[in-house]
């Protein structure tokens, strides 16, 4: 990595890390508030509040993508494309299995699956150009 690309990675780490710290803080507050107040029409708003800092994490990633050079962007495209398609197939396959009695799984598990396949795709794509 060159200095300008190190800088891009550092900026991303700071921006994304900050968003994730904010996410953790809001999540803990939201859970505490929800547990202390079992009733109330406003509960859904508190429950989705951690999404707001998460959006800043997404924006940090988009800025990081824009600062990458063309090969790094291609590697990301291949990894994200793999993750997109494989997650679609996996979640559809499990959805079909739920029709025949497999236990229902919460939507929040979709994201970890996407991230894991993305990481795998990054390793595979980076090796292709190494």
């Amino acid at each position, binding site marked *: *990595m*060159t*200095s*300008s*690309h190190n800088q891009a990675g550092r900026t991303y780490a700071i921006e994304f890390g900050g968003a994730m710290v904010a996410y953790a803080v809001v999540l803990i507050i939201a859970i505490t508030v929800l547990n202390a107040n079992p009733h109330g029409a406003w509960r859904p708003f508190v429950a989705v509040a951690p999404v707001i800092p998460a959006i800043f994490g997404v924006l940090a990633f988009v800025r990081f993508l824009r600062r*990458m*050079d*063309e*090969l*790094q962007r*291609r590697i990301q495209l291949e990894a994200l494309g793999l993750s997109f398609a494989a997650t679609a197939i996996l979640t559809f396959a499990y959805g079909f299995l739920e029709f025949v009695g497999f236990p229902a799984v919460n939507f929040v598990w979709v994201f970890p699956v996407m991230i894991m396949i993305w990481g795998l795709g990054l390793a595979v794509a*980076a090796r*292709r*150009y*190494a």
Partner: protein
Amino acid sequence: MNTQPYTRVDPEAPMRNKLHVLRAERGWSQAELADHLGVSRQTINALETGKYDPSLPLAFRISRLFQQPIEAIFQDDESGR
């Protein structure tokens, strides 16, 4: 070199280039060349090993940096030389 014209079997096969030679002439490391071109060292390595072909803007930056026309740096196998 091969005087027989031939067609590249794989249209996706990367071009050959003499980036490695030009860099060695100046005594630059991959990281130094990367800095001059504003790309990552990973990209320089992929270009030199022929695993990645540069975009036109990057090819022009390389051309300007080494003060040679693009076709003097990158060889198109399909032209059959």
